[in-house]
């Protein structure tokens, strides 16, 4: 079995799961959902750390990785914070006394 074969199955299953989950989100929340999934796509930060932290990294690799870490962590922080800021605003009005 090729080493990537397992990965392909994982990819396929996760993709179907994504479809099913997102289909059910109400349009009310589409904007926060978009920014949440933007935040999740910042998972590239994992790759950025791996490539920068490689002990055999060349000068070029290290700098590319360094810039990638900055970009990805910016995406993580901005993505999650803005999503949270939006969702904080969604509330039902308290019943009037």
């Amino acid at each position, binding site marked *: 079995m090729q080493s990537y074969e397992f990965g392909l199955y994982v990819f396929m299953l996760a993709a179907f799961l994504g479809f099913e989950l997102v289909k059910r989100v109400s349009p009310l929340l589409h904007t926060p959902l978009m920014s949440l999934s933007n935040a999740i796509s910042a998972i590239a930060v994992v*790759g950025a750390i791996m490539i920068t932290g490689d002990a055999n990294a060349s000068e070029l690799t290290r700098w590319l990785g*360094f810039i990638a870490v900055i970009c990805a962590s910016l995406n993580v922080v901005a993505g999650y914070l803005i999503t949270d800021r939006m969702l904080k605003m969604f509330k039902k009005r308290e019943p009037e006394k």
Partner: protein
Amino acid sequence: MIEAVKEFLPLIYMLASAGFILAVKWMNNPATARRGVIIGEIGMLLAVIGTLLRVDANFTYIFIGLGIGAAIGAPLAYKTPMTAVPQLTALSHAFGAAASALIGTAEFYQKSPTGFTMAALSLETLLGYLTTTASIIAFAKLQELMPTRPMTYKGQNVVSLGTLCAAVVLAIFMVAGTPQPWMFPTFITLSLAFGIFLVIPIGGADMPTVIALLNSYAGVAAAAMGFVLDNRLLIIAGALNGSAGLILSIIMCKAMNRSFTNVLFGAFGQVATGAAAAVAQRPVRSATPEDAAAILEAASSVIIIPGYGMAVAQAQHKVRELYDVLTKRGTEVKFAIHPVAGRMPGHMNVLLAEADIPYDKLLEMDDINGDFSNTDVALVIGANDVVNPLARTDKTSPIYGTPILDADKARTVMVIKRSMSPGFAGIDNDLYYMDKTLMLFGDAKGFVAGIVKELQGSH
């Protein structure tokens, strides 16, 4: 000790993946959505910790990088006004995609991969670079640093597709044979250029769909990176994102009655100018805040149709006051939210929620369209294309077939608008010329404030 910890690293990654899945799942419902964000944050934290435990060098670079990113990202997220969320998402995308692209580039020069790994790396780099430039263009269009109208020229599709094909052919050469030194830089340039060509011809109104699609690309790029680095967490998060972005952009296309290919090869707005010129000189009836207040006073049911213009004028808090005053008088007030009100689906909900308007008063188009005929007043604030009856009647109109809110069916229609200038789609609106329509010219915020003052003064 460190060795013992390393044994459990896969577990940390698995928990991180579960966190992302739950995050998207809990986004289903406003009641659980915040919990979703928190679990997503925990997932990301676990992912970062789990990765830091795996690497063994250059920690200074990593921590400085993380620090700089957070130091720029946090103020960006806190300072950006809610009206500019679509732009911020686009910008944030550009950075995320740039990260994927740079990692791909670094991997290429570090490991000279071959076969399947090289194919995955090509996909990662292609999508990474094109998403970067495409997101920057999307940002510039939404921020109106660039003209929002679609920019088209002759032979456009040939140029775009040619660029993509050239990039793909180069990638095939690099996978099949030994890459020559010039190949990879050329591949990068082509990818960057294709990103620009992809978004330039798309109009500002379609930009949210594009952002969702770019989101999908960024996800697939991350998944491809997972294959290159043999990392399942990247594969899962990337695939989740890839499909989420894709289905979201399809849902948006449906809401706007635009076919997917049409958005991508858009030539929207070209037919529009002729139609607009023909109807430019028709008379309209205008009214003052006092007149408007008198009509609202007499009404027992009101539907407010907010649009992006309301948000730009920062009128949502005044609209909340109007809502309060009218509700107190016993008038039934509802809000009709078009699926693409604001700049992207759900954007208007966010803006109104910011002003403390309860979200159970915000009704989706399909739920409220039947109510207009029994409604005394439809008050349109800064919306235009989403209430244009031409979308139902005029087959030659570029917006024909787009689902709209049937504001024209209410007994009286009032439209608050700065001037008679056309909306985002660049076409005239028949609604304004109807006998039962009153145009309320002015700044949305000031005008609504005027109405509220009248209503408060009158009891």
